[in-house]
């Protein structure tokens, strides 16, 4: 299986702080991979470097075969993202915001695509309302619609269901799963919701203090740590309770 995202020796230092330390991993085409770790483990920093909005201190990033540090504009039209750390203009309506980004991504028929997404994500009730007047759940759906406008081949999702109630969170996961089934998109997901990870992800990359400490499928990790859930595995990794050395996948062995 080929890698839609290939990261080699990626590092980021902010003065004395080493936020990401020589991270290496692959995200295989058409899979959903989770980037897990406690707050400050380096998830958002890694995603920001993958998106090209943060310059790495060292390392290489290839997305869809393109070197992101040299040719990110070749691949940006083929990828998209959602993040709680960015917003959309609050005084513009939902449809205006989507129209602006439809033009930025060069959609041939923006009205048709916005209509499709409004159907799929149930946006019709608030398309004409200013984005700033929406609830957290509605904003998250709009952000997802923005992220799906260009039908991305690679989708980076930073805590996509944070602050959502269980109902909206579940619908969001269903939308993402349906989108992936329909398009064979590659998704990299940073999340603190372990149920979400177990449900959606075929592969999990565990980060601690900026380093990859383990990688595998949720079932493999649960078995390797002798636990019953990913929540317990997460706590083991976050608290450094790796009593026995985990068996690293061969591509991570130095």
């Amino acid at each position, binding site marked *: 299986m080929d890698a839609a995202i290939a990261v080699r020796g990626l590092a980021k230092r902010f003065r004395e702080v080493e936020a990401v330390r020589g991270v290496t991993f692959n995200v295989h085409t058409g899979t959903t991979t989770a980037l897990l770790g406690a707050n400050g483990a380096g998830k958002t920093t890694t995603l920001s470097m993958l998106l090209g*909005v943060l310059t790495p201190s060292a390392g290489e990033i290839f997305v869809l075969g393109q070197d992101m540090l040299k040719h990110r504009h070749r691949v940006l039209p083929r990828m998209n993202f959602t993040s709680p750390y960015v*917003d*959309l*203009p609050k005084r513009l309506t939902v449809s205006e915001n989507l129209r*602006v*980004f439809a033009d930025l991504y060069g959609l*041939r028929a923006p009205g048709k695509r916005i209509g499709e997404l409004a159907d799929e994500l149930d946006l019709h009730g608030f398309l004409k309302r200013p984005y700033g007047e929406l609830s957290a759940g509605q904003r998250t759906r709009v952000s997802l619609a923005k992220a799906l406008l*260009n039908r991305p081949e690679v989708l980076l999702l930073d805590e996509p269901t944070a602050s959502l109630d269980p109902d909206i969170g579940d619908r969001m996961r269903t939308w993402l799963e349906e989108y992936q089934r329909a398009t064979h998109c590659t998704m990299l997901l940073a999340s603190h919701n372990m149920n979400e990870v177990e449900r959606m992800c075929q592969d999990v990359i565990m980060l601690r203090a900026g380093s990859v400490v383990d990688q595998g499928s949720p079932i493999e990790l649960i078995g390797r740590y002798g636990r019953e859930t990913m929540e317990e595995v997460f706590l083991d990794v976050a608290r450094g309770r790796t009593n026995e050395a985990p068996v690293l996948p061969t591509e991570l062995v130095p």
Partner: protein
Amino acid sequence: MKADVRPMLLYPQSGPAASVRRVRALLRRHAYLLLKSWPRIVSMTYYPTVTMVLWALLTVYLAPTNNFLQSAPGFFIGAVLLWDVLFRGQLGVSLTFVEELYSRNLGNLFVSPLRFHEWIAGQLAMSVLRTAIGVGGACLFAFVLFHYSIFSLGFPLIAFFVNLLVFGWAIGLAVSAMILRWGLGAEELAWAAIFLFAPVSGVYYPIAVLPAPFQAIAWLLPSAYVFEGMRAVLLEHVFKYNLFFPAVALNVVYIAVGVWLFRAALGYARRHGMLMSIGE
């Protein structure tokens, strides 16, 4: 694997047509904001108009006893309107940028296919629109209230307008760079920076009245050549090319410096992770 439907979904992403589409998207974003808020449009015209009225009334008061104003009655009004071209040109760039910071939208924009030169083009195009609304409104009031037409300057008006607008862009880009570098704490610069240039631009008086060191500074600014040129047109009825060409040459340098500063600030923001976090 499913068939790739994106070529049918998206236009080609490179070439001039793609650039025009993306610049148009930036304009659309700000036009939506501007056109739905009449207080915004009024406030853009309000300050230039009030300033123009003050100078016009001063002219009305002084003209009967002042030979200079009798020979050039539109002097102060023309000066204040042209000064506002510089001011609005700079504000148009800086405030358009600050809007994106308020919206915490930079991350979305710089992860989209938008290129650096398209971003700059969008900022400058918005500056033209804001200047046209702001100064255009004041010009209209000047004509209605005081029967003064800025077009009485004739063809040189275009030369003055373009030179001041470009200098305003250069200052606006430099101010945006500082705001990007130091965050919204430096936002006040968007409003205040331009006034540093006012005393040495010779808007209402010849550069010759400045103390010698300030004269040396003034001749480094395109605005000084423009306002000297304006006085030559009004008082001597001549367009002085020896004032026009230095202004153009200096503007080429300043706009290049402005673009370079913004690019450097963007590089700093990328290195320090500010594009995702900067905002209110």
